[in-house]
């Protein structure tokens, strides 16, 4: 069986829901951040796959991937800054402890 677009989409969808599972079950904020990275990667795979299989003559998927990677880097940096600050104030990085913003 020749590998086609559907196979790659299966892979990226699986990766996406693994990320979702991780985001919902992990209580440690750093591991939640990792789960988010998985989500972003699955999206990147989608972009590249569509670019390769459907729009071979264009570069749009590549550019979106590049921008996504850049934005993901920024996001990760800010997230880690927040986590460190949170840890400094609460001596914990458990997301259950970050509940002061409620009624």
């Amino acid at each position, binding site marked *: 069986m020749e590998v086609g677009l559907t196979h790659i989409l299966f892979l990226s969808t699986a990766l996406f829901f693994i990320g*979702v599972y991780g*985001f*919902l079950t992990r*209580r440690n904020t750093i591991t939640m951040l990792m789960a988010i990275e998985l989500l972003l990667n699955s999206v990147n795979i989608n972009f590249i796959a569509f670019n390769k299989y459907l729009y071979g003559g264009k570069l749009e998927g590549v550019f979106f991937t590049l921008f996504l990677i850049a934005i993901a880097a920024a996001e990760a940096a800010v997230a880690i800054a927040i986590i460190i600050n949170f840890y400094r104030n609460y001596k914990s990085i458990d997301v259950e402890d*970050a*509940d002061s*913003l*409620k*009624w």
Partner: protein
Amino acid sequence: MSNALSIILIPGLPLLSFLLLGLFGRKYLRENAGWIGTLSLLASTVLSLVTAFNYFFVSGKVSGVYQQIIVAKHTWLEFSHGVSIDMGFMLDPISVMMIVIVTFVSLMVHIYSLGYMKGEERFATYYAFLSLFTFSMLGLVLSSNIFQIYIFWELVGVSSFLLIGFYFDKPSAVAASKKAFIVTRFADLGFLIGILVLSFGAETLDFKTLIERLTTSTPQLNSMIGASFLGASSLTWGLLLVFAGGAGKSAMFPLHIWLPDAMEGPTPVSALIHAATMVVAGVYLVARLFPVFAISAPGALQVVGYVGAFSALIAAVIACTQTDIKRVLAYSTMSQIGFMMFALGVSGYGGEHGLGYMASMFHLFTHAMFKALLFLGAGAVIHYVHSNEMEDMGGLRSKMPVTHLTFLIACLAISGIPPFAGFFSKEEILLAAFQHNKLIYAVALFTSGLTAFYMFRLYFSIFWNKEFHAEHHDDHGEGPMTMKLPLIILGLMALIAGFVPFSHFVTSDGQMLETEMHIVFSVAPVFLALTGILIAFRLYKSENPGAEKIASAFGGLYEWALHKFYIDEIYLFVTKKIIFNLIGKPSAWIDRNIVDGGVNLSADLTGDTSDLIKDWQSGKLQKYAIWFFAGAMGLVVVFMYVWR
């Protein structure tokens, strides 16, 4: 045009001094504030005297008739073509006469206050208020537009309020200023509606056009007379409402209750505002619209006459019983303004018939002089004795010779004893009343007798009667020169003002009117006045029980008059019992239960709903994520299968 400029400067200088003193007075100018105010007013006075001279002897007359001259005019708000609020200055005999009176009396008061208010902490503020008042009053009399007069009218009311409440740490002064403001505001409501009625009918706000349209046969006049409401034409209603505003400012019955209380202000203020200038604004207003009253609505003019006569009488009766010297003077003011009012009321328009109008303006002029003098004299007495009550005084004639002499002149003038100023103007009024309305004449004659009585009751009580005991009293003399000088000048004016050939200058139609003295006619009032003085002499020259005997002989009437005929109590009853209970309480109930209830209901609903759903806001990040995820999936399902 230098002429226009000098006329603009007449009210402009006090305005300037108000701004200067109001902004910088307390901090930087302090003691100099008085001099700044006085000097700017002195300039204003000189300018108005020059203007008066120019108007009466040089430029005002065209073929024997004094013209209405608009010296400056600026269209400020144009509502529709022809109906606009202008800011302008109009010169005619009465406005020229008024600017002279206002600046002159105000100048006297400014000078007097230099001594009287010395050492007062808010000295500069006081002078700022005085300047504001003078500015407003000058603006009022010079107005060329009925709405402009209303604006200055309110400004005058405000400055009066500020000055009555000048001692704002005294509760009675605060109450008095509020009372004055509310009562006159209430009357001004009538004035405003009157303005609207008149301007709607005449299709203009400009005095000159308004008077022209409403005195000659024009479509506007006919439609106003044609439109009738409750048995009177809309013209009559409009004029009566305007008169209601004037009655409020001029303290005519039944809107007079604020005037006696207004005496809580500093005494020079009482002299300026509540005796000589502001309170005659109502008379001035009626005189301003006099052609309309006299030619087109004689019914309204009759009302003016009867209200004036009644106020004159009732005020004179009350004045006989009061013991606070400023209150006696206040009621005498009210009585004298009543004289002016009914003099207008019995007057006709033009020629010989206009005698009452001329007399009224003449009396306004002389009254301003001697009433200001009386108040300033009373101020000097109060300054010396530190009390307003008659029983604390007595035997002051040797301690205060200047005050004594000038006060005596003023008393003789107001009583109508020849050759003092009041005699001439009062004679004219009585003559006019005699010619037109015998009932009012009778009332006026009796009232002028009463006037002589209560004025000399005051005079004897202050300067004769018992000896003055200067216990706990540092004898600081009669007062500085700044206080005596205005008394002397005003005393001279009270002596000679009557000899001004007034009828040559101020008449209803602008034409010269020759008046002659009827010796025979003058016998009755002078005799009555002398009788009043004699009675007062017998009762109050020295301490004796005569006064109390007479008071008890009058019994109920005396009690009534002492309590000012319970008019204040009636007002209180009406407002507290009737208005508060019938209107205030139900509206309060509606406000509390229905309006507030509605608001509370919506607030409670929101609160309760929030209580119910606040647990959703748990602060648990992953719970939010689950809901977000579920929502996103739900949307996918919706878009895939439901909304395709």
